Protein backbone atom coordinates (compact mmCIF):
# COMPACT_ATOMS: atom_id res chain seq x y z
CA UNK A 1 0.00 0.00 0.00
CA UNK A 2 1.11 3.52 -0.81
CA UNK A 3 0.56 4.62 2.80
CA UNK A 4 3.23 2.18 4.00
CA UNK A 5 5.76 3.44 1.44
CA UNK A 6 5.28 7.21 1.89
CA UNK A 7 6.53 8.78 5.13
CA UNK A 8 3.56 11.14 5.44
CA UNK A 9 -0.19 11.12 4.90
CA UNK A 10 -0.10 12.27 1.29
CA UNK A 11 -3.77 13.21 1.14
CA UNK A 12 -3.37 15.59 4.10
CA UNK A 13 -0.58 17.31 2.17
CA UNK A 14 -2.81 17.60 -0.92
CA UNK A 15 -5.62 18.98 1.27
CA UNK A 16 -3.24 21.56 2.76
CA UNK A 17 -2.11 22.64 -0.72
CA UNK A 18 -5.80 23.03 -1.69
CA UNK A 19 -6.38 25.10 1.47
CA UNK A 20 -3.48 27.40 0.57
CA UNK A 21 -4.89 27.73 -2.93
CA UNK A 22 -8.43 28.38 -1.75
CA UNK A 23 -7.55 31.09 0.77
CA UNK A 24 -5.11 32.76 -1.66
CA UNK A 25 -7.41 32.88 -4.67
CA UNK A 26 -9.51 35.70 -3.19
CA UNK A 27 -6.37 37.68 -2.41
CA UNK A 28 -5.21 37.10 -6.01
CA UNK A 29 -8.12 39.34 -7.06
CA UNK A 30 -7.68 42.18 -4.58
CA UNK A 31 -3.90 42.23 -4.07
CA UNK A 32 -2.63 40.39 -7.16
CA UNK A 33 -4.83 42.11 -9.74
CA UNK A 34 -6.03 45.35 -8.14
CA UNK A 35 -2.84 46.09 -6.16
CA UNK A 36 -4.76 46.66 -2.94
CA UNK A 37 -2.69 45.73 0.11
CA UNK A 38 -5.73 43.97 1.46
CA UNK A 39 -5.29 43.33 5.18
CA UNK A 40 -9.03 42.77 5.53
CA UNK A 41 -8.84 39.58 3.41
CA UNK A 42 -8.83 37.38 6.53
CA UNK A 43 -12.03 39.00 7.75
CA UNK A 44 -13.88 38.13 4.53
CA UNK A 45 -12.85 34.52 5.21
CA UNK A 46 -14.26 35.11 8.70
CA UNK A 47 -17.53 36.55 7.34
CA UNK A 48 -17.97 33.44 5.17
CA UNK A 49 -17.33 31.12 8.11
CA UNK A 50 -19.74 32.93 10.46
CA UNK A 51 -22.39 33.12 7.71
CA UNK A 52 -22.24 29.33 7.50
CA UNK A 53 -22.48 29.13 11.29
CA UNK A 54 -25.42 31.58 11.49
CA UNK A 55 -27.43 29.84 8.75
CA UNK A 56 -26.73 26.51 10.43
CA UNK A 57 -27.97 28.03 13.71
CA UNK A 58 -31.16 29.35 12.10
CA UNK A 59 -32.07 26.58 9.68
CA UNK A 60 -29.98 23.64 10.87
CA UNK A 61 -28.14 23.32 7.55
CA UNK A 62 -24.45 24.15 7.33
CA UNK A 63 -24.57 23.31 3.60
CA UNK A 64 -27.11 26.07 2.97
CA UNK A 65 -24.83 28.42 4.91
CA UNK A 66 -21.93 27.44 2.68
CA UNK A 67 -23.96 28.30 -0.41
CA UNK A 68 -24.90 31.72 0.99
CA UNK A 69 -21.47 32.54 2.47
CA UNK A 70 -19.83 33.68 -0.82
CA UNK A 71 -22.87 35.84 -1.62
CA UNK A 72 -22.80 37.58 1.78
CA UNK A 73 -19.01 38.07 1.64
CA UNK A 74 -19.19 39.40 -1.94
CA UNK A 75 -21.91 41.91 -1.01
CA UNK A 76 -19.87 43.08 2.01
CA UNK A 77 -16.83 43.34 -0.27
CA UNK A 78 -18.70 45.38 -2.88
CA UNK A 79 -19.93 47.71 -0.14
CA UNK A 80 -16.40 48.16 1.29
CA UNK A 81 -15.02 48.86 -2.19
CA UNK A 82 -17.70 51.44 -2.97
CA UNK A 83 -17.49 53.25 0.37
CA UNK A 84 -13.78 53.07 1.22
CA UNK A 85 -11.40 51.42 -1.21
CA UNK A 86 -12.51 53.10 -4.45
CA UNK A 87 -10.95 56.37 -3.30
CA UNK A 88 -7.63 54.75 -2.43
CA UNK A 89 -6.37 53.12 -5.64
CA UNK A 90 -2.78 54.23 -6.29
CA UNK A 91 -2.40 55.08 -2.58
CA UNK A 92 -0.96 51.81 -1.17
CA UNK A 93 -0.08 53.10 2.30
CA UNK A 94 -3.54 54.60 2.81
CA UNK A 95 -5.11 51.34 1.58
CA UNK A 96 -2.99 49.38 4.06
CA UNK A 97 -4.17 51.58 6.93
CA UNK A 98 -7.82 51.52 5.89
CA UNK A 99 -7.98 47.74 5.32
CA UNK A 100 -6.20 47.15 8.64
CA UNK A 101 -8.75 49.39 10.39
CA UNK A 102 -11.64 47.69 8.64
CA UNK A 103 -10.31 44.26 9.64
CA UNK A 104 -10.30 45.37 13.31
CA UNK A 105 -13.85 46.70 13.04
CA UNK A 106 -15.18 43.48 11.44
CA UNK A 107 -13.33 41.19 13.88
CA UNK A 108 -14.44 43.15 16.94
CA UNK A 109 -17.97 43.39 15.55
CA UNK A 110 -18.14 39.63 15.15
CA UNK A 111 -16.75 39.18 18.68
CA UNK A 112 -19.45 41.52 20.03
CA UNK A 113 -22.20 39.54 18.31
CA UNK A 114 -20.92 35.98 18.74
CA UNK A 115 -18.50 36.39 21.73
CA UNK A 116 -14.95 35.00 21.64
CA UNK A 117 -16.17 31.50 22.56
CA UNK A 118 -15.34 28.85 19.93
CA UNK A 119 -18.14 27.81 17.60
CA UNK A 120 -18.48 24.74 15.42
CA UNK A 121 -19.82 24.41 11.89
CA UNK A 122 -21.00 20.86 11.23
CA UNK A 123 -19.23 18.84 8.54
CA UNK A 124 -22.07 18.27 6.01
CA UNK A 125 -20.67 14.89 4.96
CA UNK A 126 -18.71 13.65 8.01
CA UNK A 127 -17.56 10.46 6.31
CA UNK A 128 -14.28 9.19 5.05
CA UNK A 129 -13.18 6.62 2.52
CA UNK A 130 -10.04 4.52 2.16
CA UNK A 131 -8.08 5.38 -0.96
CA UNK A 132 -4.83 3.52 -1.80
CA UNK A 133 -4.30 2.89 1.87
CA UNK A 134 -5.02 6.43 3.04
CA UNK A 135 -7.95 7.55 5.11
CA UNK A 136 -9.55 10.34 3.04
CA UNK A 137 -12.16 12.49 4.83
CA UNK A 138 -14.77 13.30 2.20
CA UNK A 139 -15.14 16.93 3.23
CA UNK A 140 -11.42 17.54 2.65
CA UNK A 141 -11.81 15.87 -0.74
CA UNK A 142 -14.65 18.33 -1.50
CA UNK A 143 -12.31 21.21 -0.58
CA UNK A 144 -9.64 19.88 -2.95
CA UNK A 145 -12.16 19.49 -5.80
CA UNK A 146 -13.64 22.99 -5.25
CA UNK A 147 -10.17 24.60 -5.12
CA UNK A 148 -9.24 22.98 -8.45
CA UNK A 149 -12.65 23.83 -9.95
CA UNK A 150 -12.28 27.51 -8.96
CA UNK A 151 -8.87 27.77 -10.64
CA UNK A 152 -10.22 26.10 -13.81
CA UNK A 153 -13.27 28.40 -13.72
CA UNK A 154 -11.01 31.45 -13.41
CA UNK A 155 -8.91 30.31 -16.37
CA UNK A 156 -12.08 29.81 -18.45
CA UNK A 157 -13.56 33.20 -17.42
CA UNK A 158 -10.27 34.85 -18.44
CA UNK A 159 -11.03 33.98 -22.08
CA UNK A 160 -14.63 35.26 -22.04
CA UNK A 161 -15.86 38.80 -22.69
CA UNK A 162 -16.09 39.40 -18.93
CA UNK A 163 -12.54 38.14 -18.35
CA UNK A 164 -11.09 40.21 -21.20
CA UNK A 165 -12.78 43.32 -19.75
CA UNK A 166 -11.38 42.50 -16.30
CA UNK A 167 -7.87 41.97 -17.66
CA UNK A 168 -8.06 45.18 -19.69
CA UNK A 169 -8.98 47.27 -16.63
CA UNK A 170 -6.25 45.61 -14.55
CA UNK A 171 -3.66 46.32 -17.29
CA UNK A 172 -4.65 49.93 -18.02
CA UNK A 173 -7.81 51.39 -16.41
CA UNK A 174 -7.59 54.70 -18.26
CA UNK A 175 -7.34 53.11 -21.69
CA UNK A 176 -10.13 50.69 -20.78
CA UNK A 177 -12.31 53.64 -19.80
CA UNK A 178 -11.54 55.29 -23.15
CA UNK A 179 -12.75 52.11 -24.86
CA UNK A 180 -16.15 52.25 -23.19
CA UNK A 181 -15.48 50.00 -20.19
CA UNK A 182 -16.56 51.41 -16.84
CA UNK A 183 -13.37 50.82 -14.83
CA UNK A 184 -15.06 51.57 -11.52
CA UNK A 185 -17.71 48.87 -12.08
CA UNK A 186 -15.07 46.37 -13.12
CA UNK A 187 -12.92 47.09 -10.06
CA UNK A 188 -15.92 46.74 -7.76
CA UNK A 189 -16.88 43.42 -9.36
CA UNK A 190 -13.29 42.12 -9.16
CA UNK A 191 -12.95 43.09 -5.49
CA UNK A 192 -16.38 41.61 -4.67
CA UNK A 193 -15.48 38.38 -6.53
CA UNK A 194 -12.28 38.11 -4.47
CA UNK A 195 -14.23 38.65 -1.24
CA UNK A 196 -16.85 36.10 -2.34
CA UNK A 197 -14.16 33.48 -2.91
CA UNK A 198 -12.63 34.34 0.49
CA UNK A 199 -16.08 33.90 2.05
CA UNK A 200 -16.51 30.54 0.33
CA UNK A 201 -13.06 29.49 1.58
CA UNK A 202 -14.04 30.46 5.13
CA UNK A 203 -17.31 28.50 4.97
CA UNK A 204 -15.62 25.40 3.50
CA UNK A 205 -12.79 25.44 6.03
CA UNK A 206 -15.02 26.12 9.06
CA UNK A 207 -16.07 22.46 9.63
CA UNK A 208 -12.44 21.31 9.89
CA UNK A 209 -11.35 24.17 12.18
CA UNK A 210 -12.57 25.71 15.41
CA UNK A 211 -14.38 28.94 14.63
CA UNK A 212 -13.49 32.08 16.59
CA UNK A 213 -13.08 35.79 15.72
CA UNK A 214 -9.36 35.09 15.12
CA UNK A 215 -10.23 32.46 12.48
CA UNK A 216 -9.39 34.60 9.45
CA UNK A 217 -6.04 35.77 10.79
CA UNK A 218 -4.51 32.30 10.63
CA UNK A 219 -4.95 32.29 6.84
CA UNK A 220 -3.91 35.89 6.14
CA UNK A 221 -0.12 35.48 6.31
CA UNK A 222 -0.12 32.30 4.22
CA UNK A 223 -2.38 33.95 1.61
CA UNK A 224 0.06 36.85 1.24
CA UNK A 225 3.01 34.44 1.13
CA UNK A 226 1.43 32.48 -1.72
CA UNK A 227 0.46 35.54 -3.79
CA UNK A 228 3.82 37.31 -3.27
CA UNK A 229 5.92 34.20 -3.89
CA UNK A 230 3.88 33.33 -6.98
CA UNK A 231 4.24 36.91 -8.26
CA UNK A 232 1.15 39.09 -7.78
CA UNK A 233 -1.28 38.74 -10.67
CA UNK A 234 0.02 35.36 -11.86
CA UNK A 235 -2.40 32.45 -11.42
CA UNK A 236 0.28 29.99 -12.58
CA UNK A 237 2.72 31.40 -10.00
CA UNK A 238 0.03 31.14 -7.33
CA UNK A 239 -0.51 27.45 -8.15
CA UNK A 240 3.22 26.73 -7.91
CA UNK A 241 3.57 28.74 -4.68
CA UNK A 242 0.60 26.90 -3.12
CA UNK A 243 2.22 23.57 -3.97
CA UNK A 244 5.64 24.64 -2.64
CA UNK A 245 4.44 26.29 0.59
CA UNK A 246 1.44 24.06 1.31
CA UNK A 247 3.40 20.96 0.41
CA UNK A 248 6.39 21.94 2.57
CA UNK A 249 4.19 22.77 5.55
CA UNK A 250 2.23 19.53 5.14
CA UNK A 251 5.37 17.39 5.08
CA UNK A 252 7.14 19.29 7.89
CA UNK A 253 4.11 19.09 10.19
CA UNK A 254 4.48 15.31 10.28
CA UNK A 255 8.00 15.54 11.63
CA UNK A 256 8.16 18.69 13.77
CA UNK A 257 5.74 20.94 15.63
CA UNK A 258 3.41 23.19 13.59
CA UNK A 259 5.08 26.33 14.97
CA UNK A 260 8.55 25.27 13.77
CA UNK A 261 7.09 24.03 10.47
CA UNK A 262 5.43 27.42 9.87
CA UNK A 263 8.71 29.20 10.73
CA UNK A 264 10.62 27.08 8.21
CA UNK A 265 7.99 27.69 5.53
CA UNK A 266 8.20 31.43 6.16
CA UNK A 267 11.99 31.25 5.84
CA UNK A 268 11.59 29.22 2.65
CA UNK A 269 9.28 31.87 1.22
CA UNK A 270 11.76 34.66 2.05
CA UNK A 271 14.64 32.77 0.42
CA UNK A 272 12.55 31.87 -2.64
CA UNK A 273 11.40 35.49 -3.06
CA UNK A 274 15.02 36.66 -2.77
CA UNK A 275 16.27 34.08 -5.28
CA UNK A 276 13.45 34.49 -7.81
CA UNK A 277 15.08 37.36 -9.79
CA UNK A 278 18.38 35.42 -9.91
CA UNK A 279 16.62 32.28 -11.13
CA UNK A 280 14.84 34.34 -13.80
CA UNK A 281 18.18 35.72 -15.05
CA UNK A 282 19.71 32.25 -15.17
Amino acid at each position, binding site marked *: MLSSILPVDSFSVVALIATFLLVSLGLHFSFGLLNIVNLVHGEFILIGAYTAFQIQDWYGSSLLGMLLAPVVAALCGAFAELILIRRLYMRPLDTLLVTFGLSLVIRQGIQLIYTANPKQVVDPIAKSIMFVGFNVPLWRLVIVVIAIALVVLWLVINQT*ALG*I*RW*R*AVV*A*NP*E*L*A*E*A*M*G*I*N*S*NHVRTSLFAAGCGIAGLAGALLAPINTLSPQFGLRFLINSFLVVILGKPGSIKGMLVASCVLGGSLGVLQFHISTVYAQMIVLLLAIIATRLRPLLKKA
Partner: protein
Amino acid sequence: MSICLEVKNLTTGYGSTTIVRDVTFSIEQGSALCLLGLNGAGKTTLLKAIAGLLPFTGSVVLNGKEISHQNGAKINRAGLAYSPQEKGVFAGLTVNEHLRLARRFDENNLSRQEELLDLFPTLRERLSQDAQTLSGGQRKMLNFVVALSSSPSLVLMDEPTEGVAPVVREQLVGALKVISNMVSVLIVEQNLDTALALSNHGHVMERGRLVASGDINQMHASGLLESLLAV
Protein backbone atom coordinates in the same frame (compact mmCIF):
# COMPACT_ATOMS: atom_id res chain seq x y z
CA MET B 1 -22.10 72.03 -42.02
CA SER B 2 -23.20 70.96 -38.53
CA ILE B 3 -20.95 71.00 -35.50
CA CYS B 4 -19.58 67.67 -34.27
CA LEU B 5 -17.71 68.86 -31.16
CA GLU B 6 -18.04 72.13 -29.32
CA VAL B 7 -15.65 72.92 -26.47
CA LYS B 8 -16.37 76.03 -24.41
CA ASN B 9 -14.15 77.65 -21.77
CA LEU B 10 -12.50 74.37 -20.84
CA THR B 11 -10.03 74.60 -17.96
CA THR B 12 -8.33 71.52 -16.57
CA GLY B 13 -5.16 70.13 -14.99
CA TYR B 14 -3.82 67.64 -12.51
CA GLY B 15 -4.80 68.19 -8.87
CA SER B 16 -4.26 71.85 -8.02
CA THR B 17 -2.05 72.47 -11.07
CA THR B 18 -3.92 74.06 -13.97
CA ILE B 19 -2.54 72.97 -17.35
CA VAL B 20 -5.22 74.05 -19.84
CA ARG B 21 -6.90 77.44 -19.46
CA ASP B 22 -10.19 78.63 -20.92
CA VAL B 23 -9.99 76.81 -24.25
CA THR B 24 -12.84 77.26 -26.75
CA PHE B 25 -13.09 75.72 -30.21
CA SER B 26 -15.31 73.54 -32.37
CA ILE B 27 -15.02 70.87 -35.07
CA GLU B 28 -17.39 70.48 -37.99
CA GLN B 29 -18.85 67.13 -38.97
CA GLY B 30 -16.54 65.13 -41.23
CA SER B 31 -13.56 67.44 -40.88
CA ALA B 32 -10.04 66.98 -39.59
CA LEU B 33 -8.59 69.50 -37.17
CA CYS B 34 -4.96 69.64 -36.05
CA LEU B 35 -3.88 70.77 -32.62
CA LEU B 36 -0.27 71.93 -32.73
CA GLY B 37 2.08 72.96 -29.97
CA LEU B 38 5.39 72.32 -28.28
CA ASN B 39 5.90 69.72 -25.56
CA GLY B 40 4.11 70.77 -22.38
CA ALA B 41 1.65 73.06 -24.17
CA GLY B 42 -1.29 71.08 -22.75
CA LYS B 43 -2.45 69.25 -25.89
CA THR B 44 -2.64 65.76 -24.35
CA THR B 45 -4.26 67.13 -21.20
CA LEU B 46 -6.93 68.83 -23.32
CA LEU B 47 -7.67 65.59 -25.21
CA LYS B 48 -7.91 63.61 -21.97
CA ALA B 49 -10.37 66.11 -20.52
CA ILE B 50 -12.57 65.97 -23.64
CA ALA B 51 -12.42 62.15 -23.52
CA GLY B 52 -13.69 62.21 -19.92
CA LEU B 53 -10.44 61.01 -18.39
CA LEU B 54 -9.75 64.24 -16.44
CA PRO B 55 -12.12 66.51 -14.52
CA PHE B 56 -12.58 70.01 -15.94
CA THR B 57 -14.64 73.18 -15.77
CA GLY B 58 -16.41 74.43 -18.89
CA SER B 59 -18.54 72.57 -21.36
CA VAL B 60 -18.12 69.90 -24.03
CA VAL B 61 -20.96 69.14 -26.47
CA LEU B 62 -20.79 66.16 -28.86
CA ASN B 63 -23.28 66.05 -31.74
CA GLY B 64 -25.56 68.46 -29.88
CA LYS B 65 -25.48 66.49 -26.61
CA GLU B 66 -23.79 67.78 -23.47
CA ILE B 67 -21.16 65.24 -22.42
CA SER B 68 -19.37 67.35 -19.80
CA HIS B 69 -18.56 65.58 -16.54
CA GLN B 70 -19.58 62.12 -17.79
CA ASN B 71 -17.07 59.32 -17.31
CA GLY B 72 -14.84 58.15 -20.15
CA ALA B 73 -16.84 54.98 -20.75
CA LYS B 74 -20.11 56.89 -21.26
CA ILE B 75 -18.43 59.42 -23.53
CA ASN B 76 -16.96 56.62 -25.62
CA ARG B 77 -20.38 55.04 -25.97
CA ALA B 78 -21.77 58.44 -26.98
CA GLY B 79 -19.53 58.27 -30.05
CA LEU B 80 -16.17 59.74 -29.07
CA ALA B 81 -13.07 57.55 -29.38
CA TYR B 82 -9.64 58.37 -27.97
CA SER B 83 -6.39 56.99 -29.29
CA PRO B 84 -3.65 57.69 -26.71
CA GLN B 85 -0.10 58.82 -27.36
CA GLU B 86 1.64 55.94 -25.60
CA LYS B 87 0.96 52.75 -23.66
CA GLY B 88 -1.90 52.34 -26.09
CA VAL B 89 -2.24 48.59 -25.62
CA PHE B 90 -3.16 46.29 -22.75
CA ALA B 91 -0.30 44.15 -21.47
CA GLY B 92 -1.20 40.46 -21.54
CA LEU B 93 -4.00 40.80 -24.10
CA THR B 94 -3.49 39.46 -27.62
CA VAL B 95 -4.18 41.51 -30.75
CA ASN B 96 -7.34 39.47 -31.29
CA GLU B 97 -8.54 40.17 -27.73
CA HIS B 98 -7.98 43.90 -28.36
CA LEU B 99 -10.10 43.62 -31.49
CA ARG B 100 -12.89 41.73 -29.67
CA LEU B 101 -12.87 44.34 -26.92
CA ALA B 102 -12.89 47.19 -29.43
CA ARG B 103 -15.92 45.83 -31.30
CA ARG B 104 -17.61 45.32 -27.91
CA PHE B 105 -17.91 41.60 -28.54
CA ASP B 106 -20.58 42.45 -31.13
CA GLU B 107 -20.14 40.50 -34.36
CA ASN B 108 -22.17 43.19 -36.17
CA ASN B 109 -19.09 45.41 -35.91
CA LEU B 110 -16.90 42.74 -37.52
CA SER B 111 -17.30 43.97 -41.12
CA ARG B 112 -16.21 47.47 -40.13
CA GLN B 113 -13.20 46.02 -38.34
CA GLU B 114 -12.33 43.93 -41.40
CA GLU B 115 -12.30 47.11 -43.51
CA LEU B 116 -9.97 48.75 -41.01
CA LEU B 117 -7.69 45.71 -40.94
CA ASP B 118 -7.40 45.99 -44.72
CA LEU B 119 -5.48 49.23 -44.06
CA PHE B 120 -2.98 47.31 -41.88
CA PRO B 121 -2.70 43.73 -43.14
CA THR B 122 0.28 43.06 -40.84
CA LEU B 123 -2.12 42.96 -37.88
CA ARG B 124 -3.98 40.00 -39.39
CA GLU B 125 -0.78 37.96 -39.21
CA ARG B 126 -0.37 38.74 -35.51
CA LEU B 127 -3.81 38.07 -34.07
CA SER B 128 -2.54 35.65 -31.42
CA GLN B 129 0.47 37.80 -30.46
CA ASP B 130 0.60 39.65 -27.12
CA ALA B 131 -0.04 43.26 -28.15
CA GLN B 132 2.71 44.45 -25.84
CA THR B 133 5.29 42.64 -27.98
CA LEU B 134 4.26 44.52 -31.16
CA SER B 135 6.62 47.13 -32.59
CA GLY B 136 5.86 50.82 -31.95
CA GLY B 137 4.39 51.23 -35.44
CA GLN B 138 2.24 48.11 -35.16
CA ARG B 139 0.90 49.34 -31.82
CA LYS B 140 -0.11 52.63 -33.46
CA MET B 141 -1.86 50.65 -36.21
CA LEU B 142 -3.71 48.61 -33.59
CA ASN B 143 -4.66 51.87 -31.82
CA PHE B 144 -6.21 53.15 -35.05
CA VAL B 145 -8.25 49.99 -35.58
CA VAL B 146 -9.33 49.84 -31.94
CA ALA B 147 -10.39 53.51 -31.86
CA LEU B 148 -12.48 53.21 -35.01
CA SER B 149 -14.03 49.77 -34.50
CA SER B 150 -17.04 51.04 -32.54
CA SER B 151 -18.01 53.44 -35.39
CA PRO B 152 -17.47 56.67 -33.46
CA SER B 153 -18.48 60.05 -34.86
CA LEU B 154 -15.27 61.71 -33.61
CA VAL B 155 -11.78 60.34 -32.95
CA LEU B 156 -9.19 62.11 -30.81
CA MET B 157 -5.72 61.06 -31.91
CA ASP B 158 -2.74 61.95 -29.76
CA GLU B 159 0.46 62.12 -31.81
CA PRO B 160 -0.50 59.20 -34.05
CA THR B 161 2.82 59.11 -35.92
CA GLU B 162 5.21 59.86 -33.07
CA GLY B 163 8.28 57.66 -32.63
CA VAL B 164 7.86 55.47 -35.70
CA ALA B 165 10.16 54.86 -38.69
CA PRO B 166 9.66 57.14 -41.75
CA VAL B 167 8.24 54.26 -43.83
CA VAL B 168 5.67 53.44 -41.13
CA ARG B 169 4.90 57.15 -40.73
CA GLU B 170 4.00 57.33 -44.45
CA GLN B 171 1.74 54.30 -44.06
CA LEU B 172 0.06 55.80 -40.99
CA VAL B 173 -0.45 59.19 -42.66
CA GLY B 174 -2.02 57.40 -45.64
CA ALA B 175 -4.36 55.54 -43.29
CA LEU B 176 -5.17 58.75 -41.41
CA LYS B 177 -6.24 60.38 -44.68
CA VAL B 178 -8.62 57.49 -45.31
CA ILE B 179 -9.87 57.63 -41.70
CA SER B 180 -10.49 61.39 -41.86
CA ASN B 181 -12.85 60.73 -44.77
CA MET B 182 -14.84 58.34 -42.59
CA VAL B 183 -15.19 60.32 -39.33
CA SER B 184 -14.37 63.69 -37.76
CA VAL B 185 -10.84 63.70 -36.38
CA LEU B 186 -8.99 65.87 -33.87
CA ILE B 187 -5.28 65.20 -34.23
CA VAL B 188 -2.59 66.34 -31.83
CA GLU B 189 0.64 66.64 -33.76
CA GLN B 190 4.09 68.10 -33.23
CA ASN B 191 5.38 67.24 -36.67
CA LEU B 192 4.53 70.10 -39.03
CA ASP B 193 4.84 68.01 -42.22
CA THR B 194 2.39 65.44 -40.88
CA ALA B 195 -0.02 68.18 -39.80
CA LEU B 196 0.14 69.80 -43.24
CA ALA B 197 -0.53 66.46 -44.90
CA LEU B 198 -3.57 65.71 -42.75
CA SER B 199 -5.54 68.88 -42.25
CA ASN B 200 -6.16 72.36 -43.59
CA HIS B 201 -7.42 73.78 -40.36
CA GLY B 202 -5.66 73.91 -37.03
CA HIS B 203 -5.11 75.52 -33.66
CA VAL B 204 -1.80 76.24 -31.97
CA MET B 205 -1.50 75.80 -28.20
CA GLU B 206 1.00 77.50 -25.96
CA ARG B 207 1.11 77.26 -22.17
CA GLY B 208 -2.39 75.85 -21.96
CA ARG B 209 -4.09 78.38 -24.22
CA LEU B 210 -5.04 78.53 -27.89
CA VAL B 211 -2.82 81.26 -29.31
CA ALA B 212 -3.50 80.94 -33.03
CA SER B 213 -6.18 79.40 -35.24
CA GLY B 214 -6.88 79.15 -38.94
CA ASP B 215 -5.66 77.64 -42.17
CA ILE B 216 -2.46 75.70 -41.46
CA ASN B 217 -1.05 76.31 -44.93
CA GLN B 218 -1.54 80.07 -44.59
CA MET B 219 -0.04 80.08 -41.07
CA HIS B 220 2.88 78.08 -42.47
CA ALA B 221 3.33 80.40 -45.46
CA SER B 222 3.29 83.50 -43.24
CA GLY B 223 5.93 81.97 -40.93
CA LEU B 224 3.55 82.15 -37.94
CA LEU B 225 3.65 78.40 -37.31
CA GLU B 226 7.42 78.30 -37.43
CA SER B 227 7.71 81.12 -34.91
CA LEU B 228 5.15 79.57 -32.53
CA LEU B 229 6.54 76.07 -32.82
CA ALA B 230 10.18 77.24 -32.85
CA VAL B 231 10.85 75.08 -35.93
